[in-house]
């Protein structure tokens, strides 16, 4: 992804009241923040709303912002605090807080759990859970990298030391199998 240097430049722009820089930072960090949030709580509406809210707050206090050298880390921390703040009141997600309270690093939800949890339909949740169980670890990894983390075939190929063609074929077969299982 485009780097932290851009983010720092956008941040400085925001402090000067540059709205374009504000949207640039949003575009550059949106999916990172949403993924980060989903690993804390698999409630996609809450996560997306919180990201919007976080940026609205940044814009509102733009003239009082301090210089930041690690913009993404700053945003992650702020989003995490917002989510925790919301979850605190939400008895239904108590377990998530509990989990987070214990150990920061180990608290991330695994990919499979996230995609099952964000589904609204109970029947679909069950089906998706069972379908994911039928995939091989490699198939699951590729799906996670491509659809959740947003890697390209090229990046996955480099990451897994395979050819692009192999990655594509594995992906295609995994998706076909998944659809078959979801029917």
């Amino acid at each position, binding site marked *: 992804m485009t780097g932290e240097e851009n983010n720092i430049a956008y941040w400085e722009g925001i402090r000067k009241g540059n709205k374009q820089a504000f949207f640039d930072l*949003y575009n550059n960090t949106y999916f990172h923040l949403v*993924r980060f949030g989903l690993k804390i709580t698999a409630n996609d509406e809450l996560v997306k709303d919180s*990201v919007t*809210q976080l940026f609205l707050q940044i*814009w509102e206090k733009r003239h009082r912002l301090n210089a930041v050298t690690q913009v993404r880390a700053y945003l992650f921390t702020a989003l995490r605090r917002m989510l925790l703040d919301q979850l605190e009141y939400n008895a239904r997600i108590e377990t998530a807080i509990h989990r987070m309270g214990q150990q920061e690093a180990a608290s991330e939800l695994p990919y499979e759990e996230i995609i099952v949890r964000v589904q609204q339909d109970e029947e679909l949740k069950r089906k998706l859970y069972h379908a994911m169980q039928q995939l091989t670890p490699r198939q699951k990894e590729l799906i996670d990298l491509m*659809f959740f983390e947003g890697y390209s075939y090229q990046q996955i190929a480099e990451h897994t030391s395979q050819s692009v063609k192999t990655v594509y074929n594995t992906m295609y077969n995994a998706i076909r199998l998944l*659809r078959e299982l979801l029917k």
Partner: protein
Amino acid sequence: MSDNYRSVEDFVCDESFQRYCLGTDQSATDFWENWIKEHPDASAEIAGARELFSMLNARQGNLGEQVRELKDGLERSTFLKEEFGQREAISRRPRRILYAGIAASLLLAVSVYFFLDRQGGKSPESMPVIAATIQSGSEPRKTLMLADGSVLTMRHNSSISLSEGFSKTNRVLTLSGEAFFDVKPDPSHPFIVHTKDASIEVLGTVFNVSAYPENSYTETALFRGRVEVTSKEDPSRKTVLMPSQKLVIQSGGKRDTAFAVRSLAVDPVDHKAKEIAWVRNRLKIQDESLEQIAGRLQQWYGIPIVITNEEVKKYSYSGTFESETVIKALEALQLSYPFSFEVEQTRIVISK
């Protein structure tokens, strides 16, 4: 290349299609929107592919749509600032669109206090005695029918307090949070919604009110019929809204209670009002039984649906439709296979 595409897999596995779903690449978006127009016969596969993508993507959202959301938020806060002065709009309380269950349950007491304080116990109508309170809690939506036959869908962390004698001697209720109302006409008993900032008298039928305690405004959006909105702080200020208008009333200011009539924010893509995007349900049905469809409606609108007849359960439907209320959805389904349904206070019963 995309001309050879036949199956859902073909689309889902295409990187440019993925960027189109994510809204990260304008040229991909243009290409696929155009492609979809030129290949109407592939619409089912495209829909399936988008659904599968969003499932595997954990519904991270579409960047284009999210940016629009952010711009809306910015506009709204700029609007507040211009109208009410910087200090008012920013620093009174941290603005939150998400709220606490605790705050919601405290709210009943707060709003009653507010009434007593503001109105000084003038007329009995402006000081409702609360007989029952219904809360949506953390459910995204909760639908119920009131004793007078009006149906309302509450958004999360909202509460409705019915006045004593509701549906018998009056139709007065208090809302904290957000709700979509479909009001049964009854000219002899005006339907009145109180919020912290406004009282809304219903002269017609369908409208949406947003009045969360942590927002310093009440927004009333009207879809059909007419409503009259009166400011709580200055009862001499009232206005009648026409369909597709909304009124934003700002609270908290000492005397600069604002009254801004605006038109509804229409989504450029589907031309639907954004104010009620939270309640509108788009159902895509491919050869599903009524029992399955009822399950989906139950989940979305937050009201249990019971089917008493085995034969009716197996009625099978296909098609796509959109509706704001569970009643409208069921009425649409009735058109293909006749069945009857009855809305009870907290559930819907479908029979032959």
